């Protein structure tokens, strides 16, 4: 089929049936569900080890109340990790390239942390708006700056993930188009471009994992401040 550069980012439809839900839930099929054996196969063992690693990393800085968020944060991390990594395969649709999905993830979670902080410890939560040791004349300006920085957090979270993934995918598309177009004309340059594409792919794999981690890490940081 002839692909334009938009086809990778359009929500998939098959015979008029939207497949967006399947494409968001499919990665869960790839993770083996734990059965009631004590010694499991390698995949289950590795999966369990990975989840323990992730949960431990996220939960260490949090206090006891924050541990209620363990399931949410770990499953969010797993979802983003799998979606991002699967999106690197050809002809796939990556749901996290859609700003709508990322904002739908970032906004409610950030708002939850904010409201938790304001509800349980309002003075401390508001106190974060003024860093310690600021000179008195600067206080009004700094409070406004910190408020802006606070309110822009969900936008930043969502847009960061979207932009990184979209930019990466788009770059892959463009450079592979360049490779394909140059192949009959200047094969050597095409080979060079292919090398660049190879390095870019490795970068994209790293970015996919890092972006998922950063998303969840920032959420846990916002939680730390407020819980």
């Amino acid at each position, binding site marked *: *089929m*002839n*692909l334009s550069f938009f*086809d*990778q980012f359009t929500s*998939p439809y*098959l015979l008029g049936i939207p*497949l967006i839900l*399947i*494409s968001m839930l*499919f990665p869960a*099929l790839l993770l083996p*569900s734990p*059965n009631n*054996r*004590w*010694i*499991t*196969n*390698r*995949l289950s*063992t*590795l999966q369990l*080890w990975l989840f323990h690693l992730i949960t431990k990393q996220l939960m260490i800085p949090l206090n006891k109340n924050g541990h209620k968020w363990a399931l949410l944060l770990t499953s969010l991390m797993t979802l983003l990790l799998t979606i991002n990594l*699967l999106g*690197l*395969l*050809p*002809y*796939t*649709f990556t749901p996290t390239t859609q700003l709508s999905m990322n904002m739908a993830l970032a906004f409610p979670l950030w708002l939850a942390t904010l409201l938790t902080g304001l509800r349980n410890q309002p003075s401390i939560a508001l106190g974060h708006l003024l860093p310690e040791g600021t000179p008195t004349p600067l206080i009004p300006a700094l409070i406004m700056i910190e408020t802006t920085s606070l309110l822009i957090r969900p936008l930043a979270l969502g847009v960061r993930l979207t932009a990184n993934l979209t930019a990466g995918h788009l770059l*892959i*598309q463009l450079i*592979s*188009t360049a*490779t*394909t177009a140059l192949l009959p004309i200047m094969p050597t340059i095409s080979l060079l471009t*292919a090398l660049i*594409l*190879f390095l*870019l*792919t*490795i970068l994209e*794999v790293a970015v996919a994992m890092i972006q998922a981690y950063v998303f969840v890490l920032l959420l846990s940081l916002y939680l730390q401040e407020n819980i």
Partner: protein
Amino acid sequence: SAAILVRGKPGGHRGEGQPVGRAVTGSVPFDMLSRLVLRAAPAALRSLAPPATVGVLHVTRPLHTTQQRSAPLPPLPEKGGEVRHGLIPEEFFQFLYPKTGVTGPYMLGTGLLLYLLSKEIYVINHETVAAACILTVIIYGVKKYGADVAAFADKLNEEKMAQALAVKNEAIKGLETAIEEEKKEQWRVEGRKYLFDAKRNNIAMLLETNYRERLLTVYNEVKKRLDYQVAMQNLKRQKEQDHMIQWVEKNVVQSITPQQQKDSIAKCILDLKALSKRAQAAV
């Protein structure tokens, strides 16, 4: 671009009203699919609602080959199914072998690929190059780190088992030590006769010593009293003697008259003169 094609979820969906072994034209698809079905069936069944589970079980009962048993759990297969080139199960090659020999599946693959390309059912576009890149990365990663990751997973399992085995072995060792100690105690019990004899001797000696000490004390006390009496008697006699001597001396001194005194002095002078003459003469 379409979403990734979901590999047909085995077990649950298939079992609902459609027996699995319906299309038994070749044994190979049945083998491969039955392997998938058997592995995934319990989890799939559990995920259905209870009425649906009952329905599935009822419908598929004619297919059950063995008696149902839940314990002991049937053992996991040691290794996963054999796969060639990381993707295609070995059963496929075995399936094609009788008719097309060793190169059959490869010819099929090549022909299929060329057909898709030549008829432009699959169009080479930029995604192909991207696919080649990501596949290179994946294959390189798997080949280089696959064995290490597998060894790591095995090590995790081994550690888990080793912990449990360690608990069991320590319990066994503790019990064996207890047995050894018990045997030693039983041996010790045999020597209790000697122990009691020695103790008895000790006590007898102590009693004897004590008795002798008390005897000695009695002897000393009696001797002290007798010595006192003796000393008293001696003292009394001494005093009488002294008193008598004093009385005699006093009377003697009183009885010496002055006349007697003069006479004795004159005698002494005469004796002295005689002596001195004798002495002069000797010299």
